[in-house]
């Protein structure tokens, strides 16, 4: 049996014992490893296993639509997809393939990731690789689910604004929430990367429009395939908002301002509803969706015309002659003169040792209040202003709403300046000189107003002393948006009704008696108005520098019907040289208003007799079917 054993004596038991000890040591060493993982820190690994398999995908809520007063959609959403890259699940070697498949420059992708890594953003924060996916991109992601589990398609409703920037300063735009905004209480529930309103209605009513995102929690396997749905919170779409804006009037105002710089505001003085609000030049809100490019932003920010400025509420300019009705009202409230007070205009007059010119070199001769308004005689109002003094003018200016924001529901409204002795003392620590009052009396000097303030002031004056707060969301809409909303009470003032009638008659004359505003005449309609030609720089400067920027600003404010106004329109044509050139803009808007009113009345008659026809789509852009 023992063919190969030279001895029956076996080798030492020592080696066997060593083997036994080594075996025991190995087992204990390995077991200690399991102890460490499973008993000492199982939570760490359980959490990592959980992160492996649980995927939480945002369901983005579409923002509410923004509609005009007739329910026509101004701002809508279009369904798009974006693709996210999960950094926790990312495989470095897949990146070139992904970049190629989605047509993104690989270097750009690398740079994006490097930036995130350097900013110490948490791993779970996904990277938006591409938005607005083309069908080819979607197919690429769908068909490579197994190869690239780190990619995730997300349905993301994209904001769709009107083309050519229609009503851009009303609706505003959306953009990614900024770090500064994240700190604010209003955005406490938002996460980085969220899309929020940045300007206009989008900003003002962001909470109403934004809705709330949902979340879908699923269990996935290592290939990214969904195995079960753990939780599904549907997205709650944002609430739509109906505005007071009338698309028909807005379009007319936009077209009238085409190529010009300035603003148009149309208000219903009976309730403060804003019917049209135009600021030119405008911007294209669609460019902001999904992040504006650096180049586009630089272009907007550096444009000397300041397209981002919301001129109707932010342009603080000298109103010029359209301030004269307010001076006339001040003269009545602080009876320095009778209603039949008259002045002889010889093309200018001396006040406090300085010669103040009238815009008409030859002079207007003897003028009463009526003629002074119709002809816009400066000398008459120099005289009134001189007798009133700055503080009386300021008092009436404040009464009609100058010097403070109107309170319109848009962000960043400016307040303008109403100079007075107190104002000058406070801001310049200087005494007011009576000579300065003369300029203010014709709407120049330190006096500045916004177009909206003028529309509101003149509208309220025409209403006989009742100023309604301008607003873009109708009160009935507000009551359903915000619980317990109470429409603000109008500001009322006891005005001498005969004086108001006299001023309105003067403004009627401006348009209808060969005054400065004849260009806003609409045959068959009762339009009142006032031109304004406001100096931007001194006449001396303008003479020396013949440049566009030193040309006068053209203003026109008009309302109709004169006795019971339904609409008041202000047009500002910056550097338009003379107020009567702004008048046609106002005329177009007022005409559009009455045309539409006629048309509506006509179709209502028509539909009651022939119920088969629908009374929709009576846009100004549609062929005219008006037959009063």
């Amino acid at each position: 049996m023992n063919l190969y054993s030279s001895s029956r004596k076996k080798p030492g038991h020592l080696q066997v014992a060593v083997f036994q000890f080594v075996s025991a040591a190995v087992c204990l060493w390995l077991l200690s490893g399991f102890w460490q993982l499973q008993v000492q820190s199982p939570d760490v690994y359980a959490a990592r296993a959980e992160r492996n398999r649980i995927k939480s995908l945002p369901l983005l809520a579409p923002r509410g639509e923004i509609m005009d007063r007739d329910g026509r959609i101004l701002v809508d959403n279009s369904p798009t997809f974006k693709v996210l890259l999960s950094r926790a699940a990312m495989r470095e070697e897949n990146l070139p393939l992904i970049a190629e498949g989605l047509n993104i420059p690989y270097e750009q992708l690398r740079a994006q990731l490097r930036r995130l890594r350097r900013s110490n953003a948490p791993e779970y924060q996904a990277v938006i690789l591409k938005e607005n996916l083309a069908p080819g991109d979607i197919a690429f992601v769908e068909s490579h689910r197994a190869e690239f589990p780190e990619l995730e398609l997300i349905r993301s409703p994209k904001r769709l604004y009107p083309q050519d920037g229609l009503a851009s300063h009303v609706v505003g735009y959306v953009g990614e929430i900024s770090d500064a905004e994240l700190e604010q209480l209003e955005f406490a529930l938002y996460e980085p990367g969220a899309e929020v309103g940045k300007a206009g209605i989008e900003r003002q009513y962001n909470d109403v429009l934004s809705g709330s995102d949902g979340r879908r929690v699923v269990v996935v396997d290592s290939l990214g395939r969904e195995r079960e749905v753990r939780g599904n919170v549907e997205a709650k779409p944002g609430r739509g908002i109906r505005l007071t804006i009338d698309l028909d009037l807005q379009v007319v105002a936009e077209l009238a301002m085409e190529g010009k710089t300035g603003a148009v505001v149309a208000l219903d003085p009976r309730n403060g509803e804003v019917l049209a609000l135009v600021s030119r030049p405008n911007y294209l809100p669609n460019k902001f969706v999904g992040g504006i490019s650096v180049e586009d932003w630089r272009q907007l920010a550096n444009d000397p015309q300041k397209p981002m400025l919301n001129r109707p509420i932010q342009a603080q300019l000298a109103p010029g002659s359209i301030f004269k009705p307010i001076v006339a009202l001040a003269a009545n409230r602080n009876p320095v003169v009778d209603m039949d007070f008259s002045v002889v205009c010889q093309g200018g007059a001396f006040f406090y040792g300085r010669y103040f010119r009238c815009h008409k070199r030859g002079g207007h001769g003897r003028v009463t209040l009526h003629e002074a308004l119709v002809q816009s005689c400066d000398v008459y109002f120099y005289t009134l202003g001189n007798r009133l003094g700055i503080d009386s003018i300021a008092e009436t200016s404040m009464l009609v709403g100058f010097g403070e924001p109107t309170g319109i529901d848009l962000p960043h409204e400016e307040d303008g300046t109403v100079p007075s002795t107190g104002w000058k003392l406070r801001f310049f620590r200087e005494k007011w000189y009576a000579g300065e009052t003369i300029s203010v009396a014709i709407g120049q000097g330190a006096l500045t107003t916004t177009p909206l303030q003028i529309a509101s002031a003149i509208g309220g004056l025409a209403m006989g002393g009742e100023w309604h707060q301008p607003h873009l969301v109708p009160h009935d809409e507000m009551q359903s948006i915000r619980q317990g909303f109470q429409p603000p009470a109008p500001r009322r003032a006891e005005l001498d009704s005969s004086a108001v009638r006299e001023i309105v008659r003067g403004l009627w004359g401006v348009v209808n008696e060969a005054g400065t505003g004849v260009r806003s005449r609409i045959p068959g309609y009762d339009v009142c108005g006032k031109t304004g030609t406001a100096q931007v720089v001194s006449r001396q400067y303008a003479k020396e520098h013949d440049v566009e920027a030193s040309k006068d600003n053209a203003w026109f404010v008009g309302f109709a019907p004169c006795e019971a106004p339904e609409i008041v329109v202000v047009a500002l044509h910056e550097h338009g040289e003379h107020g009567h050139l702004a008048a046609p803009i106002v005329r177009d808007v007022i005409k559009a208003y009455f045309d539409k009113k006629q048309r509506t009345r006509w179709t209502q008659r028509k539909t009651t007799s022939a119920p088969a026809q629908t009374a929709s789509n009576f846009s100004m852009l549609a062929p005219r079917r008006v037959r009063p």
Partner: protein
Amino acid sequence: MIRHYSARDFDWVLLGITIAITMLGLLEIYSATRNTPWQEAHVRQIVWIGLGLILLWVFSAIDYNILIHHALTFYAIAVALLLLIMVLGQVIGGARRWLLLPGGTTLQVSEFVKVVLVLLMARFFSALHPERVSAKNLLKIAGLFAVPMFLVARQPDLSTALSYAPILVMGVFVAGLRWKFVLVLALAGALILPLAWQYLQPYQKERLITFMDPERDPRGSGYQPIQSKIAVGAGGIWGSGFSQGSQTQLRFLPVPHTDFIFSAYAEETGFVGVTVVMALYFAILMKIAGNAKTSADSAGMYICMGVGALLLFHFLVNIGMVIGRMPVTGLPLPLMSYGGSNLLATFMLLGLVNNVRLRRFTN
């Protein structure tokens, strides 16, 4: 020559432990392959276990001295088969390791080479006994081992090739070596290691680097060790329950029925289940050591110690890999991992151990 061996002498405890481990492995294979392309794996494993038991009986029945007598013949056949595979072998996963049998079954010859090498080692060193190993003899046996190691490494299957080394090391260790030799060998090893690095495949280098720092590339070469550690840790003390482990069931764990079966098992049975199996493996090693002690002659002792060294090596490397204390290699866990060749070879080896025990009384 014909001797009667009583059933009492058969190592029933060793058999019982062996079967217990294979059954736990079988359950885990079933759990880890449900709803996957390998969901038939447990049925095949049952067949392998059945065959293995027969082989265990066969390798217990034939006197190990006879087997040792023919060791050189077996060795020649093994080398011939390895050479044959280099020409005719089935290529699976980029390596030429498998011999296709009629009926579509594939056998991994390199697994069976282990049995041959254990017999060869036992023959060589028991013949020397009680001499100490001389340099000449050491070179001789090392040369004999080097041929199959080289052939297997060329397949390429470096980890299986390296798993032969413990058999030789154990033989030398038991036979006894001068300290001078040990020093020289250690020095030679230290010199060869950096050279060997040059000859490693890129993926092998990568594995060794990530073993040092797996989080360096969590989605690439670090993926397997990280996911394995997550699976083990997520199991906690009591485990997630049979077929409830998310790492295993959602396939975050790579090859959970073969190389990483112990991660899957650890996730689903927790520290408690791990302790049970570790105890069973430890018991097998102690039984083997016990049989080595009581063997009738030095040849039997060498056989037992060779088997013990081989199993301990597999055990250490595979389970060490599961908890991230060893680099990722393709070595299966004997008796638990799915796979016929390794299972059959392990049963043969345990049959040899039992063989030695059966013939421990020499009168």
